[in-house]
């Protein structure tokens, strides 16, 4: 009697745990309740509401209610999720192609490293010139504003591209002697001489 009694006690003790586990899984499956927690792509519904209403298919644009004859409910559940997933082209039609909406990548994407090409991960500044000459349209898929180029190539007073730490001016001489070419990736020769000519 001791054995079965102990077993029963164990089963009774484990029961609330397994029930809680099922409830958690069920809750997890209600993915739409967590849409605001999805950090990789942020979609503020409220901010889009007025524009979508005016443009038509306010909610149906991303949440289709098209007819279906799928009767396998488990399969249908998965297909609903796929049907509801955001589609780059739908977002980009306003935010990138037409630029009728704000087009800063970080408005929707939390980390630019997730969306930029892999070759951007290491010292891409050394190769960007060749790529941009070969196919500038590739760059423009993300860099919609030409100031992204001109801020480096033609301006020195921009605060957008801070690649050196503060007070780098004191240390730059040493590094420039070690690897002068590295300065040349961003700066042309006038950038040096403009100052050095004044203070020889």
């Amino acid at each position, binding site marked *: 009697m001791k054995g079965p009694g102990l077993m029963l006690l164990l089963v009774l003790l484990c029961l609330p745990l397994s029930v809680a586990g099922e409830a958690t899984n069920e809750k997890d499956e209600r993915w739409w309740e967590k849409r605001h927690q999805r950090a990789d792509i942020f979609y503020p519904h409220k901010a889009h509401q007025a524009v979508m209403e005016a443009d038509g298919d306010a909610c*149906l644009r991303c949440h*289709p209610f*098209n007819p279906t004859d799928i009767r396998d409910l488990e399969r249908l559940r998965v297909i609903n999720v796929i*049907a509801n997933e955001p589609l780059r*082209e739908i977002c980009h039609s306003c935010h990138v192609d037409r630029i009728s909406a704000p087009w800063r990548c970080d408005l929707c994407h939390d980390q630019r490293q997730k969306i930029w090409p892999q070759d951007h991960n290491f010292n891409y500044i050394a190769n960007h010139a060749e790529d941009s000459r070969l196919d500038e349209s590739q760059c423009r898929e993300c860099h919609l504003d030409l100031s992204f180029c001109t801020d480096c190539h033609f301006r020195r007073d921009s605060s957008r591209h801070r690649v050196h730490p503060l007070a780098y001016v004191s240390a730059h001489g040493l590094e420039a002697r070690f690897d002068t070419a590295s300065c040349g990736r961003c700066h042309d020769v006038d950038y040096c001489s403009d100052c050095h000519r004044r203070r020889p």
Partner: protein
Amino acid sequence: MAATPVMAQRPVDLPPLHHLVNVKPSKAVNVPEDFPLNHRGEITCETCHGIEDIEDIPFEEVDKRAPDFLRQGPYAKTTAFCYRCHAEKTYRRQNIHDLLDARGEYDEKACEYCHQQAPDPGKDHTREQLKLRLPPETICLGCHLKTPHLNALDHLVKPDEKMRRRMQASERRLGIILPLDTRGRIMCVTCHAPHERGLIDESKPAGKQVADGDVKEGVVYEDHPWDAVYRADKQARLKKLPGGAAPVALYYRRLRSEVLLRLSARDGALCLACHAFER
């Protein structure tokens, strides 16, 4: 009654419920020119199937997902293939939501598909007085699938208290009803108005619905340039599923007109009667 086509002398081992072969199509059937008939003008395997020598391949080994398994496929619905030859109109069932005739009179027989006795549309009724043949949550299922459109499945649930309060507020504010089933769950008629516009007076909450659609025409969609890229994206996702993408087709269309909805889904009013966004 038309004579039943007789099988020809050469027996063909067909799976159950298969279309007849070795019969001449009747005059009512319009076989496309590029669907080949045999020299006697009869339907053969090649008429419908584009797979070479399909009759020599064992049934289990036939690739039923091949695009040309049914000629010029794939087809989202098998019936779409049937209607390549057969006139769709002649197979259409009566639309029982089409309740009013040209004079605005309603057909009591159509009402009695769902009601034991046609209720007076001018009067207010309790749910019991409507004398529905089946509970409201199952009555639609005699003709419609339980999930006849995407995202229907996720809606057939019991809304939480917060959403129920929002729904009640929408009912008061918009002068509509958003009825739940006896167990408090969302059902088809929570969003869909089953009666043709004009049958129940629009001043009544049960009679208010979208105005732009024609119940005879049904929901009308229009093509959209995003369709190609949408299909490609979704097919790539579907292919990763166990069982692959076939025969599911997710496509992108826009609503041109909607019908039998308590509020417009096109501008999102129907969705926002229940849903709210924090951000």
